[in-house]
């Protein structure tokens, strides 16, 4: 074979090899970056879940049949809230929806209740309605954070262009995890309504700070 032709073939093979190597390296880097990004998000979630709990102010009537033993939230700065969720806030700190521990202090079986987290200044409330349960006299009941958040579809796309969607409970990266309409100091949590097995219903009496 002619020397010039051999040289051309060698150069062609080298160029093709070089392009393949570059393509492989870029693909590897992209996958590595995606993995690192996912790991970083998981780490952020874990760090917030492991951070110290902050108490949420509890207000209730003396005769409340479901007493709040504890209401605790996670709290981040407004800047971190923006980084986590992509949403802007004017608040210096933003707190999460709470985990609430309740006690049936009535002499009856509770079949449902309504919890409210409220900013009385703006008359804005976020809460949860629990029904179809049985809480016996003296029994404790824990309301998890997930109870305040409706599930949402999350989609991921891979390199083949396949989109995988699944229904998940929102985590720290979702704005649903956070209460962004008021700071923790302005909020209070209370039991507004309790229904009993005998068909009777108890409602909170508004007045003073409870409004």
């Amino acid at each position, binding site marked *: 074979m002619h020397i010039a032709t051999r040289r051309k073939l060698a150069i062609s093979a080298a160029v093709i090899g070089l392009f393949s190597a570059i393509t492989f390296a870029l693909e590897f880097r992209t996958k590595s970056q995606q993995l690192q990004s996912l790991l970083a998000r998981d780490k952020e979630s874990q760090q917030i879940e492991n951070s110290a709990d902050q108490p949420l102010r509890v207000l209730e009537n003396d005769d409340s049949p479901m007493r709040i033993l504890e209401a605790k939230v996670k709290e981040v700065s407004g800047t971190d809230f923006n980084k986590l969720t992509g949403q802007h806030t004017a608040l210096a700190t933003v707190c999460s929806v709470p985990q609430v521990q309740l006690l049936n202090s009535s002499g009856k079986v509770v079949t449902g209740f*309504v919890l*409210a987290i*409220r900013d*009385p200044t*703006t*008359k*804005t*409330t*976020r*809460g*949860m*309605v*629990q*029904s*179809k349960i049985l809480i016996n006299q003296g029994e404790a009941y824990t*309301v*998890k954070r*997930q*109870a*305040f*958040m*409706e*599930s949402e*579809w999350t989609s991921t796309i891979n390199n083949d262009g*396949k*989109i*995988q*969607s*699944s*229904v998940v*409970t929102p985590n720290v990266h979702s704005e649903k995890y956070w209460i962004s309409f008021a700071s923790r100091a302005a909020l209070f949590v*209370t039991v*507004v*309504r309790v229904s009993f097995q005998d068909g009777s219903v108890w*409602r*909170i009496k*508004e007045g003073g700070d*409870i*409004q």
Partner: protein
Amino acid sequence: MKVRFLVSILFSILVVVFAAIPNATLSYAQCKCTCRSTCSGSCAYSCSGCGLVDGAEAAQRCCDSAPAPSNCGEEEIF
């Protein structure tokens, strides 16, 4: 003189009452709640412009009629 004084007091009361009525109607009209059943068996709600109890009652009615989520744990690949 006395009659004029009484009439002016009555007029002031009427002005205050009529001024209050539209505000009460307005605040009631602004009460709005949204709700959605969750996969954990509860129903999450949010209300704006509502009284504490009014909002909870509205949320209870909203949740009573909210359909249960049918897609809990569901996964789709396109």
